[in-house]
């Protein structure tokens, strides 16, 4: 599903984000991306949905070399990749329903599809009763669930989660992880960058560790350290 071959990325001022990283993630895998701040986790994620381009190396997503994608096709790549963030990135002036529907509206999905899929995904994340609430009326955990609903409503092949539990308390984090696990079990590949040792050690999924931009460890059913 995802394959990196000798991928390097250097930012201005010779800041090395990734150095010759190679790895492959199969369809339906759940992978934790761990490492200290500045180790290249976020760059890794941003390269996958082409928010950044590598300085060298090749990245394949769903069998396609995304380096060869022309600009106008990038949105089509992104429709196959859902993204979840630590700060949720919800739209404050829209209700829960509207936030989730937004992801379908902007890619031109018909109204009847939106009116079917949004309630279904809100049911999945347990927020049916909060559909008409605004983000500021929700707890952090609920806001992250809305963010997950929005990322998953279009049934992407891949879900990228950049520290999704970073702003949540341990109990709420467990709920979010259970939700991501359920989504993973539907066949969606999940790549999650995290600093949460407890979660990684509990779930025992594949762990890829980055250190100063290099791949330091790739462990099946791994632990944080």
């Amino acid at each position, binding site marked *: 599903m995802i394959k990196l071959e000798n991928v390097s990325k250097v930012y201005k001022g010779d800041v090395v984000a990734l150095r010759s990283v190679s790895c492959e993630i199969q369809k339906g895998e759940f992978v934790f991306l761990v490492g200290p701040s500045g180790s290249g986790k976020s760059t890794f994620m941003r390269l996958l*949905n082409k*928010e950044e381009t590598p300085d060298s190396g090749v990245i394949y997503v769903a069998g396609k070399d995304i380096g060869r994608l022309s*600009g*106008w096709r990038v*949105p*089509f*790549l*992104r*429709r*196959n990749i*859902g*993204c979840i963030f630590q700060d949720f*990135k919800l*739209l*404050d*002036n829209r209700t829960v329903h509207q936030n989730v529907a*937004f*992801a379908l*509206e*902007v*890619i*031109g999905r018909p109204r009847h599809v939106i009116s079917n899929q949004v309630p279904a995904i809100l049911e999945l994340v347990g927020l049916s009763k909060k559909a008409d609430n605004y983000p500021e009326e929700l707890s952090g955990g609920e806001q992250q669930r809305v963010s997950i609903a*929005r*990322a998953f409503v*279009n049934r992407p092949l891949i879900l990228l989660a950049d520290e999704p539990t970073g702003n949540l308390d341990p109990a709420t984090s467990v709920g979010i992880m259970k939700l991501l696990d359920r989504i993973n079990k539907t066949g969606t590949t999940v790549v999650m960058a995290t600093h949460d040792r407890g979660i990684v050690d509990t779930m025992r999924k594949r762990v890829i560790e980055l250190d100063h931009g290099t791949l330091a460890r790739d462990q099946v059913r791994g632990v944080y350290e």
Partner: protein
Amino acid sequence: MNFRIGNIFRELSYSLRRNPSLFLGTMAVIAISLIIVGSGLVLGDAVGNATARWKDGVEFAVFMNPDSSQVEIEAVSAKLTANPEIERHSFVDQQNAFIEFQDLFQDSDLIRQSVTVEDMPPSFRVVPSNPESSVVEALADSFRDEPGVFQVVAATDAIRDIEDIGERLNNRFFFVGIFLLAAAMLLVYNTIRTTIFSRRREVEVMRLVGASNWYIRVPFMVEGVLQGLIAGVLTILALPFVNDFIASLGNTQSLALLDGLRATPSQVWSTSILMTIVGAAIGGLASAVALSRYLDV
């Protein structure tokens, strides 16, 4: 292009509700700029219409009786040709005089329908070698008593002054207008930039979920063009009043010679349409530049 018109207008309405004062302020500046430039053009047309017969150095006109004979006309022509103080002259026959009259009173059906070709006096338009008003007056007087002559009308200094003032005013309107339009363009640019900034979260989410570049950009473009178009519509509404005001200046006692100081309805319309197109172009261009600089999709 994978988007729906309804969605684009919904995005646009979100944007307008967020910053209505900025939108209205920018639109007002564009409208004022367009009205000033448009007023200059309408004034130019009005002065042109009022002084049409005094173009190209023509200093006086010898109007013949409508029923004057060919012999009388040829006699006056011969006298004009023979006079060394006259540089050149041209003859406007009844048919052309009728067309000129119809053009001059385009907006008054009553006046136009009250005359026929036969009612129109043929005339000679005369360009003297020396345009000094005393020389022109003396030359004009020498034709008043010729057989078949109905009236001799000389361009006065007042008409020349009006032409000069009209031209100078026109130039000033134009330069002030261009300056204001440039300011309006910068304002649209900044409005779109501010809108992009205030909607950065939406834009970020749109990009992440795979909205096409067009879907993201079009509402911003439409916002800029819409400001220009609405300002254009205000210009369309305002220019007839500007034309009436100019005409009222021409009707005052001191400027009675400029009775026809008025742009025709078709001239006002074409100026209005031109200003609307300019408004939309300014809005579109400023938006496009702002988008290329500040919207990373």
